C-alpha cells in the first residue's frame, strides 16, 4: 500500500528527476540540486493536481522539505469536505 508520503515522494521523483529511493523526508532545496524556486512551484502544482487541493502562498512557502510537503497534503486532504 502506498502511503501518502510515498505518493508525495513519487511526485517529487518525477519533478526533480531523481530516483525515489534517493529522496527522504529531509530532502529539500538545500540538498536536492534540481530543487530550485521554479521546480518548487512545479512540485506544488503537481501535488495540487494529484490530490485536488489548493495551497495558500504561506503553505507553498512552508513546504520546504518532502516531509513538510507530505504533512501539508495530509492536513489538506483531511480537511476537505467529503
Amino acid at each position: 500500500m502506498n502511503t501518502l508520503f510515498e505518493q508525495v515522494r513519487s511526485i517529487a521523483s518525477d519533478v526533480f528527476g531523481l530516483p525515489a529511493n534517493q529522496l527522504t523526508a529531509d530532502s529539500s532545496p538545500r540538498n536536492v540540486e534540481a530543487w530550485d524556486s521554479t521546480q518548487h512551484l512545479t512540485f506544488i502544482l503537481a501535488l495540487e493536481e494529484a490530490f485536488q487541493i489548493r495551497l495558500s502562498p504561506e503553505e507553498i512557502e512552508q513546504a520546504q522539505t518532502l516531509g513538510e510537503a507530505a504533512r501539508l497534503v495530509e492536513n489538506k486532504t483531511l480537511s476537505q469536505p467529503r
Partner: protein
Amino acid sequence: MALSIEPYREQHEAAVREFNRRLIAAGADPNLVFYGHATPQWLPRTSDSGLYNEYFVALSDGVVRGGYALKHQNFYFGDGAVRSVAYYHHPLSEGIVDKTHAVVGSLLLRDAMARAPLLYCLGMGGYDRPLPKMLGKLGWSHWAIPFYFRVVNASRFLREMQALRTSRVRRLLMNLGAITGAGWLGLKSHNAWKAVRKPRLASYESHSIESFAEWTAQLWNDARNQSTFTAVRDFRALKLLYPPEDHLIKLQITKNGHTVGWAVAGERRRDPKFGDMRVGSIVDCWASPEGAVPAIQAATQALIDSGCDLIVSNQSHRLWQQALQICGFLRAESNFIFAAGKQLANHLQPFAANQERIHLTRADGDGLPRNF
C-alpha cells in the same frame, strides 16, 4: 515577491507595453510579446458567446511580470455532452529574460488551472520546450498530433527546406536533387502514384464561399458522433472563427446538391524554417466520412492554384489522416503537441485508444489569425 494575477484591463496597457519593451531589450523575439490591448481583437467576449478570449496579467507592485490568455470554447465529447473547455495560450514570463522572475511561468499556469478546470494546451513547439516539460511533470496526458506535408514545387522544396538542411551532406544531396531534377522526378512519381490510387471524385463539387451559412448546422449534427472530442463546429462557432473579412480560403463540398464537407485553407506567413517557399496550410475541416477525401483534395487544389510550393496540415482524427494520405501527403515528425489537464483527460479515457477519434486541427491552437 508578492505576485497577483488578474484580468487584463485597460489600466494595465501601459505596464504591458513596458513589459514588452523589457523583453525585446533583453533579446526576446519581437513577434512574441504580450497583447497590447486589454480587449481581445480576435474573439472578444460578448454576452451570449461561448467562444471568446480572455487575457490575464501577473503584477508585482503594479509592474507587469507576465501574462497569459485563455480561449474558452464549447467542445463535444464522446458521451454526447457539450462542455466549455479552455485553451491556455500565449503565456509570457519575464523569467525568460530575467531569472529572478523564473517562478512567474509556473504561477501563470497554476492560475489558469484554477480558473478553468477543463484545460488544454496545443502546439508548444516540441517536447524540448519548457511548457511541455512542465506539463509532463504535472501528469497531463499528451501526444504529438501527426503532421503531414505535400510538396508542390519539388525543386524549390529541395533548395529551401531549412529543417532538412541540417547537415552538410544533406544540403549537398538536396541541392543535387534540385539541380538535376532527380528530386522533382521522385516527388512527381509519388504524386502520380497517389493520383492513380485516389478514388473517383468526379461526382463531388467544391464551392469557394465567403462565409459559412446555416447549412453547416446539419453537417455538424450528422458528423459529430465520429469524434470523442472536438470543438463545436456549428454555424454560430464558424461565423466567429471565420468571418468573411479574414484572408482564408473557405470551401463547401457537395454531392448532388447535398453538403458533405467543408475545409478552410490559407497561406502561412513567411517562416525562416521554410526558406523562401510559399507554404499553404489546410487549417480546418469537417465532413461526413465520404466527404473527407473530396474536402482535402479541394483544399489542396485551391492552395496549389494560389501558388503554394508546399502544403502542410496537422490532423488528429484518423479519418482526416487517411484522407491526407490518399491525397498524396506524407507524414513527418510533429512538434504540435496536445496536452490535456487531468480533469479534461478524465473525460477522454482511455486516452491512447481515443486519440484517433479526437478531432483537433491547427484551428484549435493559437495560429488563427496571426499565422495567416
